[in-house]
Every structure is written in structure tokens, then in C-alpha cells.
């Protein structure tokens, strides 16, 4: 479709150079924090909340809210990108590194993929390597405040190098597998991996 120009269309938003460099293709900078969810926001009582790491691990783990808060705190500062084209630049979250959770559970060598499962029934799949090496967190603070329920509170997965549907809201656990198993949106036409810099939005992108 090279060369097509939309008659009369002009850029209205001027991203500054620094901002433009941080925006993956097809994204725009959004100062707000939009909410996109396929169903009602689940309400999870902290007394009943648990976080599990299970499947192909040597020692399956289950933390209560207090226990997970006592794990070493880890902060993320940077940019997040939603497949619906907004990016939020220079935001922050705090929680625990997924590396810390995996270290406790000790993945079996054959573990290659993960399904994140959630309160409310949502699932998303990731290669294990996308969750290791300081690239992923379970977070419960956003910009210094408790993470609101509509943004995934009490706690959500945060995998900022992939589109935000991989950062599962209301996360209840990680299940390690020796094979890939497409999750909710991945079964409904969205890309299996979702790298914003490769613009992997939909199947076949």
C-alpha cells in the first residue's frame, strides 16, 4: 500500500524527539491510563488473595498477601504499550520481580512457557524467557499508590516489553509448561507474543 496519502490529513500531535523515539510503530503517547477489560472488574478480598507458581517447578509456591509483600521490593520505571495504540511514557510500578518468584519455585529444565492465570478467569501465555532476567514483575503499586482494581489491583503481572494484554490484571498465578498454550486474547486473533517494537498486534503480524 506504499505511497497512499490520506487527502487532507495532517499531523495534529507533535511528539517531541525524545518522546517519538520511545514510541513503537503505530503508537501515540497518552497522558492518562485507559482501562480495557473484556468483562467486569473482579473484586478480590486481600484475606483470600493468593499468588501461586505451579506446574513444572521443583517446589510449587503459594504466597498470601502479607507474604508476597515481605518479598524483596522491586521497582519498574519506564514505558508501557497497549495494543489499542496508546503508550504511557515514564510511568512507574512497584512489587516483586518475577525472578524472585521463580527462584523460590525452581523451574524444571524442561519448563519453556508460562500461562498467567487470573481472578475473573483471564489467561495469557508467554515464553518463560520473557518473564526472566529482570523483565517482568508482579506489581501492586502504581506511581506510589495502591494499584486500583480497574487497573488490575490488588496485583497484576507487568511485562512492559510486550503489549499490555500480556501484563495480566488480577493475576492469581503462573503455571509453567513444557509447551505453549495460547491464552484468552491469543485465542481470539491477537498475536501470540505481542512485541510492540515489531508491531505484533494480530495473528500473522
Amino acid at each position, binding site marked *: 500500500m506504499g505511497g497512499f*496519502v*490520506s*487527502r*487532507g490529513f495532517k*499531523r495534529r500531535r507533535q511528539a517531541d524527539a525524545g518522546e517519538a523515539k520511545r514510541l513503537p510503530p503505530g503508537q501515540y503517547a497518552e497522558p*492518562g491510563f*485507559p482501562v480495557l477489560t473484556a468483562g467486569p472488574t473482579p473484586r478480590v478480598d486481600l484475606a483470600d488473595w493468593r499468588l501461586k507458581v505451579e506446574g513444572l517447578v521443583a517446589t510449587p509456591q503459594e504466597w498470601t498477601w502479607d507474604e508476597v509483600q515481605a518479598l524483596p521490593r522491586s521497582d519498574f520505571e519506564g514505558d508501557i504499550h497497549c495494543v489499542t495504540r496508546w503508550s504511557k511514557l515514564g510511568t512507574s510500578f512497584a512489587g516483586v520481580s518475577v525472578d524472585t518468584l521463580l527462584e523460590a519455585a525452581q523451574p524444571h529444565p524442561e519448563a519453556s512457557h508460562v500461562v498467567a492465570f487470573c481472578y475473573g478467569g483471564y489467561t495469557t501465555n508467554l515464553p518463560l524467557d520473557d518473564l526472566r532476567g529482570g523483565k517482568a514483575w508482579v506489581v501492586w503499586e502504581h506511581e506510589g499508590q495502591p494499584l486500583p482494581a*480497574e487497573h488490575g489491583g490488588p496485583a497484576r503481572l507487568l511485562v512492559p516489553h510486550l503489549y499490555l494484554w500480556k501484563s495480566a490484571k488480577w493475576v492469581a498465578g503462573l503455571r509453567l509448561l513444557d509447551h505453549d498454550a495460547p491464552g484468552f486474547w491469543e485465542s*481470539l486473533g491477537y498475536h501470540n507474543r505481542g512485541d510492540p517494537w515489531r508491531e505484533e498486534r494480530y495473528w500473522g503480524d
Partner: protein
Amino acid sequence: MGRLSWRLAEVAEIRSETPRVVTIALDVPGWEGHRPGQHVDVRLTAEDGYQAERAYSIASAPAEERVELTVERLEDGEVSPYLAGELRTGDRLELRGPVGGYFVWEPDRGGPLLLVAGGSGVVPLMAMLRQRAAAGSQVPARLLYSSRTLEDVIYREELDRLAAAGDGLTVTHALTRAQPPGWTGYSRRIDAVMLEEVGWRPGERPLAYVCGPTRLVEVVAGHLVALGHDPARVRTERFGPTGVP
């Protein structure tokens, strides 16, 4: 499913729906059809190569010949002021789709159906109602639709006609900011009482589709669950970081 390729559609007609909303009817060569509730991605390209992409719900039923998008002009937006201001009949528009497989209803999914809309959130729900009518479906359906004022109601006459057809559809309006003299509909934002009065009882196990600005969707979906509806039968779609109606 193969890659969703960009393709060029031609603008066949532009209709004004409300002072801020237009419907763009497109001829899309080779369009393979869509399911009611799905959307398309629209891509605009400026002469300097700058591109902007946004997603828009499809308003037309699959049974219709043209693909129609209904677009609300957001003053601080980049794409909607072009679509709802600059675009003319005969212009071409680059799009790809259809996209989305969850916020979808077809007559064979059954019901009863509860549709709740805020502002331009009515668009994907209209595709469902149009397909319901086109298919001659008798699935009982109720639409509860919140707008600021009567003149902001999108598809008002068509909704009146659909509701008058006597095939099991009721349409209830809520006007949140101003009401015309003699208004007999609701005059406030959608709340739990309204959902109890208009919606189905949880025991009737409706399929609910809720679309609108984030705050409305949060409130409505929360009330439906609190009233006893199965969360798995409540599907939502939200737009906008800021309150649109």
C-alpha cells in the same frame, strides 16, 4: 487465519448522526464479512509520511453491502476530527480487519440479550441489533442507552423503528444532562435501580454487552455482578481515558 492486510476502501457516503457524530459508509473491495461487535483499524497517512492508527467499531450488520463506521469527533483527537470533519465522499481510507472475537453477538448465541451503551458505545451494539433484525431473530433484547441530551442520541429514529417492529426488542433511553419537555425516559446516569427495572433478572441468565466510557462500564458491570448476574456472561468494551459522555 491469514495476516490482516491493509486495504483501501472508498467512502461511498457520509451521514451526520448528531452534531458530533458521523457515519461513514465504505465500499471495501474483497471484504470477507465480519461479526457484529467487531472493529477495524483505520490508518491515516500524511504527505510527510506520518501515520496515525485507531480502532473503530463496525456499525453495520454483516448482511449489509457496505461497511459502516460511526465516529464521534473528539476535539483533542488526531484521527476522529479528520474522519468526522475532513473526509469526503469519494476519498479513500486505509483499513484492516475485522478484529476482535469476544465482544461479539450473533443471533445463534441466543439470549435474552441485555445491551447497555453510553454515548458512542452504542455503535457495536447497533451492529448486533441490525443483524438481529436482518436475520429475523426473535431473541428477546433490551437496550439501555445513556446519552447527554436527546440530540446526542445516535441512531434515534432507527432505534425507534426497530423497537416498534414488535419482535421482542425494547429500547430505553437515559438522558443525563438535559431532557426535552415531557420527557418520560430516565433523567439520570445509569444506576443499579435502572438496571433492575430495565434489565433481566439474574435467573433469566441474560447475555450482557456493555460498551461506553470507562466509568460507565465500570459502574454498570459492577452493578450487574452485584445484582447476581454471572460475571462470565457480562462482556465489556471501554474507550477513552477521559469521560466521553
